[in-house]
């Protein structure tokens, strides 16, 4: 396999593995738990290396995963003690563990190659270089194997516990009442996040893992409300962002991980602006439409109130609308024009006195009934 193909495959697999757990993490509003875990695993990694007397991948993996779960447990316990709120609990726990890890590294492992910077940056560009040897035979890059296993694991977890995950995410109370043990599901999910983070950061770097966990699901959530579509879209966004980012990084010769994250950021930005219903543009168009509709209704109700009264003559002029409804001249003339076009009102004389049409009267009655 060519190095470029290995990197592209690694990135795509990482995107799949991360998006699968990321969807539920984001739905549970715990996105930053991924960031917290990715930092807090450092002391676990060190402990694993210490127990194995060297940078042993397996020992490091288990140590780091244990530290990830410890983070979750500490955060939960702190929150449950009701002495601090959840965000504060997270903000207390992971830096403390990370600080402990950095201290251990610099005190006892300064001669071993375990760079604290690497915990944050990682380097996907090295993915093709480290190959896995099985029985003396080279069976391909380690990153592909580990991320392939992670993706399979996460997909299996999701398939097996789909119903439980769905229910405990959207209605934890009902899940508990039905005996689904939301706490168990919660820890299982957090365990998967920890394992994904640990497995991912050695292959592609922590910042890319966190981005792949958070950004695609949030982007997808702007585009759909259905869970299966959400999962599929998250995977698609993650994979597409990874491949495009990788191409751009190769073209401009910059950090691959950084470029993938930046690309995901651009994709999110586009979705944020242009998403069909939840996008900012669609939203402001909807707001503007509602505002104009409300203005038209205010106009017909105002006219209906004074219709046939002694004050009709003074009340039903466009100029008066500016005083009564506090509209600008521009707003008043625009609303009158629109109401006229919609066949709700008609001018009756040269001074612009307005009368309701039959349809306008109907609308006014409807509004009054609301």
């Amino acid at each position, binding site marked *: 396999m060519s190095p470029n193909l290995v990197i592209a495959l690694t990135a795509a697999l990482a995107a799949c593995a991360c998006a699968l757990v990321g969807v539920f993490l984001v739905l549970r509003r715990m996105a930053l738990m991924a960031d917290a875990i990715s930092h807090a695993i450092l002391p676990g990694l060190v402990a694993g290396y210490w127990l194995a007397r060297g940078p042993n991948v397996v020992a490091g993996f288990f140590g780091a995963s244990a530290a990830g779960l410890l983070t979750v447990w500490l955060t939960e316990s702190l929150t449950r*003690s009701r002495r601090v*709120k959840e965000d504060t609990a997270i903000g*207390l726990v*992971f830096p403390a563990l990370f600080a402990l890890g*950095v201290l251990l590294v610099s005190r006892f492992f300064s001669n071993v190659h375990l760079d604290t910077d690497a915990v944050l940056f990682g380097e996907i560009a090295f993915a093709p270089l480290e190959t896995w040897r099985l029985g003396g035979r080279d069976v391909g890059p380690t990153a592909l194997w580990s991320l392939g296993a992670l993706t399979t694991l996460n997909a299996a977890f999701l398939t097996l516990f789909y119903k439980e995950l769905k229910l405990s995410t959207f209605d934890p109370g009902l899940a508990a009442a039905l005996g689904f043990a939301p706490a168990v599901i919660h820890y299982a999910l957090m365990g998967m996040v920890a394992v994904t983070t640990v497995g991912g950061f050695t292959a592609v770097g922590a910042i890319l893992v966190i981005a792949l966990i958070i950004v695609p699901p949030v982007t997808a959530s702007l585009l759909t409300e259905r869970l299966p579509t959400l999962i599929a879209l998250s995977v698609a966004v993650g994979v597409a962002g990874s491949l495009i980012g990788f191409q751009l990084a190769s073209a401009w010769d910059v950090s691959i991980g*950084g470029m993938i994250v930046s690309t995901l950021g651009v994709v999110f930005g586009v979705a944020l602006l242009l998403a069909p219903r939840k996008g900012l543009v669609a939203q402001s168009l909807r707001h503007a439409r509602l505002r104009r509709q409300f203005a038209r209704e205010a106009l017909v109700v105002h006219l209906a109130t004074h219709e046939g009264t002694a004050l009709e003559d003074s009340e039903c002029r466009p100029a008066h609308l500016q005083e009564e409804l506090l509209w600008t001249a521009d707003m008043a003339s625009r609303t009158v024009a629109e109401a006229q076009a919609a066949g709700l009102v008609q001018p009756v004389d040269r001074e612009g006195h307005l009368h309701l049409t039959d349809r306008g009267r109907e609308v006014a009655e409807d509004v009054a009934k609301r």
Partner: protein
Amino acid sequence: MNVLRDLFLDYTLRNIALGAAVLGLVSGVLGSFAVLRRQGLMGDALSHAALPGICLAYLLTGSKAPLVLMLGAAAAGWLGMVLILRIVRHTRIDPNSALGIVLTVFFGFGVVLLTVLQKRNDAGQAGLDKFLFGQAAAMTQEQVATMAVLGGAALLVVALLYKEFKLLAFDPEFARSLALPTRSLDLLLTSLLVVAVVIGLNTVGVVLMSAMLVAPGAAARQWTDSLSKMLALAGAFGAASGIAGAVLSVTAERIPTGPVIILCVTLIVIVSLLFGSARGLVWEWLRQARHRREMRAAMAAEGGTTP
């Protein structure tokens, strides 16, 4: 006692201790508001978001002066903050996700810029990433002075707008009903967090900054229900752990300052959680044990069967 003498006489140690104390004081006070307003993770996002600002500041000016880099960091951090507030206000994306997106995307873009700088192959960029990981040991008098001025300005703003910020933290609805400009106040108070983050990056680094903001306030909260006392305590806790971390890190070799500061402040948090006079857990456990004993005694006196 040598360490104590060095604290006043040794140039390096004095700078580290002073810088860490300034950081602890400022982030303790400003972070208390973040703790109360459920923005505990804002510091984490803002400190990561600062990276592209630092790179761009260097790219544009070619200078590594602390003030230049700090301004760059502040600009990027502030932009990130505005984006977070906007996303939360205008969409149904939850705050946690908004923080996560800004954190990763800004930081990822910063990593790209770092590689661009590295490619230019000038020696000047070396160590730019160190700005993010904290290098308290290399703190200069110039940096300490810059930190003190920025931090002092931020504390002054808090002092001037104390009443408004207090209302905003505890009852934003009421503040709005009084026709206070809550949105501007919210923006200003969160902007002050950016100042604290910028001051702290240099000392404790990106990752540990969030604890520096959150921990002193969380500890102080366990001792008092009054905001003014909480702010004072948080400032004191922050400054004390800064100085303690600086002193401890020079007592032995190969002990990085930033992590030690964080471990000191974490220790204060643990003690406060357990023994804090207002909400300490130990007092609650003792109270519960006493209630159980009394309950048992009462049931025994009634002659009923004890469960």
